[in-house]
């Protein structure tokens, strides 16, 4: 498929979004309601992941390195 411009490609993507989610058959105000709910949900997911994922990942790494690091230290103590 050859798209003459980037706008055409975007409008094709929007068309695919309408077809796949099935809201192609709905009336325009229903389309707006659904899109706003969907994008606000996605926005909230992105914001939450941006704020909290680094903190959680750091805590998880500390927890696991604490277990394995602590284990190898105690076995070394036994051997010595």
């Amino acid at each position, binding site marked *: 498929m050859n798209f003459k411009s980037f706008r055409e490609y975007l409008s094709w993507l929007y068309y695919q979004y309408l077809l796949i989610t*099935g809201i192609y*058959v709905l*009336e325009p105000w229903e389309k707006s309601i659904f899109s706003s709910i969907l994008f606000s949900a996605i926005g909230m997911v992105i914001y939450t992941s941006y704020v909290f994922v680094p903190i959680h990942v750091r805590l998880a790494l500390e927890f696991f390195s604490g277990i394995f690091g602590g284990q190898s230290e105690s076995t070394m103590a036994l051997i010595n």
Partner: protein
Amino acid sequence: MSFQITHLKNVPGTGIASRQHKQESFEQAPMYVAVMTYLGFGIVTLFGYFRDFLRAVGLEKCNLAQERVEQKDFVPLYQDFENFYNRNLYMRVRDNWNRPVCSLPGPVFDLMERVSDDYNWTFRLTGRTLHNAINMGSYNYLGFAENNADFLKTVADKTQQYGVGVCSTRQEMGTLSIHEELEQLVASFLRVESSMTFGMGFATNSMNIPAIVGKGGLILSDELNHTSLILGARLSGATIRVFKHNNMHSLEKMLREAVCSGQPRTHRPWKKILIMVEGIYSMEGSVVRLSEIIALKKKYKAYLYLDEAHSIGAVGPSGRGVAELFNVNPADVDVMMGTFTKSFGAAGGYIAGKKELVDYLRSHSHSAVYASAMSPPVTEQILRAMKCIMGKDGSTEGIRRIRQLAENTRYFRARLKEMGFIIYGNDDSPVVPILLYMPGKVVAFAREMLERKIGVVVVGFPATPITEARARFCLSASHTRAMLNQVLRHMNEVGDNLCLKFSRLKYSSCPNLCDETDFELI
């Protein structure tokens, strides 16, 4: 949904029959397609509940049927799933169905333009006509829906001779000499002893099956049988058991169980076991396995009812239906039924078989006793079409049309498979269902094809399983190669725009050259 690919193997077999069935494929779509279909239906259902809530609260006017205020305490009438589906999904998209046609339904036709101001609750005609849209939906297999004055001369003469209405039933005073002539011609066409014709194809099935089978009989009917067969079976009062579509193991298991155990409580033997199948199934395009069913029928002493509505005139080297396609003796099929609506461009149906059967039906069938007889111009149209197919009018037009239909079928199916669409059914059937799956795509497909001046029929939930919506193309002998190429070109574009090419089998256009399995996963 389990991941499944069907084979396109060529097993060395004897003759046409074994080759036929190895070419039937019912490919399953990838998993993401199923997920997206359910997603689409789920979202629209949620919005349906939302709109119903608005209607119930009163924020929105209800345009459909509603109970009256006095009946509010009665059992609700309109809350079941069918009505919900009708209000909330069908109504939104119903501009794709019931389109008014204002010309002959030939290979091209004219449509009246219709717009709706309130999202398909009401329509108004703008007065403009869409001329010369290509017709891919009419059952015009041999192109007999034509208005050429030379071909229709005999029809006009007979209308002058007999009039248009018969004003009676067959049993009273409605049997005209032209009906006798038609019945003898049908019997000689099908190579059976005798036949009887009826005014309406649906009524042929639903009114004659009760006369053939009654209470104490067993009907084994295929999963995907037409509503007329199901209605006739239910009206007859016999026990109905359904076997899996075209699956001979399922049928044999049921036959064995029926012969061994007999009727449900008394265990007496069944009075009659009738196997009901169709020649070509109109929603799948698959062809019945006739030789295997006849072998089973002879082994277990059952009777066979074959409904050739779509296959008479359309398959077989000389158009005589699936019995000729499989080289089967027509006397082996106990009841051959068919309709004249599809390949002959007329209306009505017939039942053919042994003389005793047809004589019995003449006096015991509801349709013969109570329904009006076939109208004379329609009868003459069938006569001239059948004579043309048999070659009795002295020209080779009939054979030319049959060959043209077979060639169109092979070409169209091969090109669509090469493009990557999922097509169901046998390679020789002129009914081509293309799977579209998602509700949004079904609607978008119909609208886009109409904009490109091609009229297609799309079929959705009540007629097909809810996740397998499809578009059904009916090829005709009067489609020229140029028309088919135009349709294929537009299909290619629409398929790319809408992402409809789900097939994962690589199709080679010459499968007969190699002996081993010739499919690859992409």
